[in-house]
């Protein structure tokens, strides 16, 4: 096991615990927007897909990479948009009157 992968494991575990702490604090009121947002964030797979699609090392990898970029971009664009659309609807009583 190389040091790089070991560092990766440390990062994974720490990020996991950080995630547990962060998500526990999210009000159940916002659990649907939360899922939409985390889904958009995990569309970060777009980064890996872009490299695979752009390097064009083989026809197969270019095709698969292009489909992967399409799928991730759908989630990036759609995920953030719908999260914001939902959050815009959450208003307090006084906010509504103004």
């Amino acid at each position: 096991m190389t040091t790089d992968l070991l560092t990766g494991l440390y990062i994974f575990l720490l990020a996991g615990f950080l995630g547990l702490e962060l998500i526990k604090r999210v009000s159940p009121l916002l659990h649907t927007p939360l899922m939409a947002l985390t889904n958009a964030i995990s569309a970060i797979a777009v980064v890996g897909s872009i490299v695979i699609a752009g390097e064009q090392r083989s026809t197969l990898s270019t095709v698969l990479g292009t489909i992967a970029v399409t799928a991730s971009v759908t989630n990036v664009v759609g995920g953030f948009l719908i999260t914001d659309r939902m959050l815009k609807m959450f208003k307090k009583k006084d906010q509504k009157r103004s």
Partner: protein
Amino acid sequence: MSEQLIEHFIQFSYIAAAVLFVLSLKWLSAPTTARRGVRAGEIGMLLAIIGALLHHGIVSYQWILVAFVVGSLIGVPMAVLMPMTAVPQRTALSHAFGALAAALVGTAEYYLKTPNLDSFIMIALVLEMLLGFLTFTGSLMAFGKLQEVLPTRPVTYRGQNFVNLALLGIAVLIGAYLVVNPGATGLFLVFAGLCLLFGVLLILPIGGADMPTVIALLNSYAGLASSAMGFVLDNKLLIIAGALDGTSGFILSVIMCKAMNRSFTNVLFGAFGQVQVAAAGKVEERPVRSATPSEAASILETASSVIIVPGYGMAVAQAQHKVRELYESLSKRGVEVRFAIHPVAGRMPGHMNVLLAEAEIPYDKLSEMEEINGDFPYADVALVIGANDVTNPAARHDQASPIYGMPILDVDKAKTVMVIKRSMNPGFAGIENELYYMDRTLMLFGDAKGFVGEIVKSLSDGAHG
């Protein structure tokens, strides 16, 4: 810019993105800062994408550009036009997309590098493929069930768990063989096929009522697939974002489990098929008290505190806007109106809150189960609209009931209980609700939208007359 400078920029953009993603989730914790959280996430994503586009190995942007255009053309309408009742379906689809991306990148990496893959990378790759492909087909199945293009009832057959476990077992064995012999490209395809098939079989036995847990679980799997991809590509940002998504889905599925009184092992192995094979025995005719809209209106009008308990039935009947009118009408008369939300109300975690927020009901009037349960004894009226099992007192005391032990809203403790219902037919789970036969309960028979509308009408008529 020199090559080295670009490389530094890419790395810093990834680090900044990771920080912004963490802040994004932190700000999402409260409704007041939540939209800032979305901004942070967007900026982080933009930085990461710019970083990726500057990658020195990229020789052509042609296909990337095409993919960006096509992806946006699919993603924007899905976000902007989708009605809020369909958010669970959209979420299931986006889990499918995310998982597909991870699985395809994994496949591409495999074919580019085979057979020169060290075993640790291969473990990550096999996990990425397994989670990616099974989440892809599993989420498509969940989408089909939520959209009702597939039967929402659980599809079961004899020996189902055995078949599923055996299939998973074979896939894992092949995966392990691939770790040791990465050059076996033929087996690689078999492995991918088995993972795809397993995703279908996993979701097949799951009924519509269990969808909140399933969606949360698939969310977790999709995140973990992204994380595994980070190991394969040695990209720390992917590892972090995937871990955040993975834990988020994990926590949500645990919450959903608790709300339905399921054990955690049940969820992990996906064997949460059909609990509700209810002993739908005693179909005795018991007397119930019913009331007309104007009778209901006069009781509500004289109440000082009303708790409304909405269920998914309310959303199905499209009654939420009428419910908001009722809320406003009663509030104007000085009646304190609050909403009690059960964690599994709706088709995904937090769904009911979104539906009520869309109907412009202020979020500070929406209370979670634990917060409001102690207040039912002080409420003059508890009005149940489209909710059933989550209000059934049998869950507290009847050990024979299939829902025994499930946390419920203590609706039966209110001074008067009103239940809007089409007929006396038992609900989705087929369990009799003893709430309906209590002396304090008034059954309001009719369509939720129509009935609430008539209550609102008699309230305003009363005010003038």
